């Protein structure tokens, strides 16, 4: 599975973003991380093959999330479904 990594000064948390390349709110999430210099990795699920889609689906469900996009997983435990600025800010301490 090929994640794209984006470096940033705010790198105290491990931030993983599951996105769709066509999704407006996923783009906003990426923009939000970029503007706040948050280090994160992302994957555009719609561009993945079926095997990876299935793995992503299991990962999100196992963490207790729902399979909507964007889904952000912080430090492998906090799952934020949708582009929720307030929740992201609180979880990342920014």
């Amino acid at each position: 599975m090929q994640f794209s990594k984006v470096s940033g000064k705010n790198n105290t948390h491990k931030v993983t973003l599951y996105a769709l390349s066509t999704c407006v709110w996923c783009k906003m999430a990426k923009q939000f991380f970029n503007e706040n210099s948050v280090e994160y990795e992302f994957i555009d699920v719609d561009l993945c093959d079926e095997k990876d889609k299935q793995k992503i689906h299991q990962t999100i469900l196992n963490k207790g999330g729902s399979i909507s996009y964007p889904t952000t997983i912080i430090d492998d435990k906090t799952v934020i479904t949708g582009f929720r600025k307030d929740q992201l800010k609180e979880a990342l301490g920014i």
Partner: protein
Amino acid sequence: MTAITLDYVRKRAEADAKTYGYYLTPQPDLLQSFLEGLKVNEERYGYPLCPCRLASGNFDYDRDIICPCDYRDPDVAEYGACYCRLYVNKTVYESKQLPDVPERRPLEKQMRAYGAAAWGKEEKAEAAAEKPTEAPKPEAKKPSEVKRKLWYCKQCGYVVFRDDPPYICPICKAKRELFAEIESKIEYNG
């Protein structure tokens, strides 16, 4: 095939919004992104799939999330906007405050986007190994099959051939409860 242009996608969305008394999202940059997403999906899959949802690539499985999706009318009625927030009602349009809209699409239908590989292989593997049946994991539940039926609106007579009746009748706005299945029987002779 005619090239799909942004202008074509925009005009189609505008016409649909007008027909149903909705508005397109009030923020021009967001609107542009929605239309671009729809254009990409139409070029990729051959139909304008919701840009905010994952496709299976199979028309029958994706039918309910082709924009405008089956969930738009109940979502606009309840939240003032569709799941993407491309279509909004007048109040939201004027306030420019977009609400949060949770996913209404049932989980077993969402599973269709992941299903083809996963549950197909699992079934084949199980059949080959003939291993004893174990308690199925909830997430491994097979996605619902598409079984189309005829439904009619008891209020206005609108008839639709889909796996589920609409949440809201597109003609008279009656609720789903007012739809009934038309029992059809086909007899073959000879």
